[in-house]
């Protein structure tokens, strides 16, 4: 993540990191999660589900910070984030 200045509490605050879970059979490929992810973590893949909708996937070069926007904006209850522990 790009920082414009070094925050004073950088050593204490850990940026949360999440992993994306997708329920394949529910997704309808509307691309809302991909468009509105503020960190551009998601991208459309070339893989289709049984109904022929293309599915989102994660662009490995960017990190999810668990803002939860994809989970909220998904009209299909098909995507959610779980936090990865730093240990």
């Amino acid at each position, binding site marked *: 993540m790009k920082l414009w200045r070094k925050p004073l509490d950088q050593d204490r605050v850990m940026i949360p990191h999440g*992993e*994306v*879970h*997708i*329920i*394949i*059979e*529910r997704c*309808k*490929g*509307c*691309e*809302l999660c991909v*468009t*509105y992810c503020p960190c551009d973590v998601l991208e459309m*893949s*070339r*893989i289709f589900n049984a109904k022929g*909708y293309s*599915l*989102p*996937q*994660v*662009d*490995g070069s960017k990190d999810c910070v668990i803002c939860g*926007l994809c*989970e*909220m*904006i*998904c*009209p*299909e*209850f*098909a995507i*959610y984030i779980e936090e990865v522990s730093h240990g």
Partner: protein
Amino acid sequence: MNEELSNVLISKEHPMDDYLREDRLPHIWCSGCGLGTILTSFVSALQKSGLDRDKVAVVSGIGCTGRAAGYLYLDGFHTTHGRAIPFATGLKLGNPELKVVVISGDGDLVAIGGNHFIHAARRNMDITVICVNNFNYGMTSGQMGPTTPTGARTSTSPYGNHEPPFSVPYLAAASGATYVARWTSLHIRRLEDSILEALNKKGFSVVEIISPCPTYYGKKNKMGSALQQMKYYHENSVIRHGSDPAESGIDLGGEIVVGCFINKDKPTFLDSQKRSV
């Protein structure tokens, strides 16, 4: 499937499945339809409100939005067309401890159910109304309704609608509602806060939500996919809290005034009844 999605975990259950009848999912709403997002915001607001699930009942009428009650794992009823508010009124009067929520569409609430809507607001029944406005009758192939903006094309106004539309916040405010807000299905966080506020409000609270209809209204008016309609909301919605609901009318392709218009306190129907009887 030969290839695999990169860096994604495949799952079968969603954290909100507790509140949903997951055996009915995936739902029948079109790809990109705002109704799913609105349902997510509602479930999220309900989780935050800390209300006892056994004390919440959801009532909905007919139409695309009418299916919301059937997807929620709460006490609910799918009423006949336009009669969601009368049913909810009876439910509230029969069991005043219940938190009664009406989730229904513009065609159901302000067209055939228009009289029930204004009279429940006049009486200040203690119910929460979530009115999803997609400007047309989506389930029956996109006929024009009372909220269709002037000039908009629908399957029953192919040359453009020549009638002036209702503005739901203005109608609710003029009829005496105690809480009136409008958001679009893009303003998910603010919508969630607004639904939470409406749930906690005593009296007739109305939240109107503008939702994309990519299949009919969007296609007929060349507004593109749901994604493009969401971009339109992003560019054209203006947040004006406390502004006059009389200025909340929506023109075709014009700006959408959103925000909380009215938030006041007034004795509810049951309060007044207790005082006088």
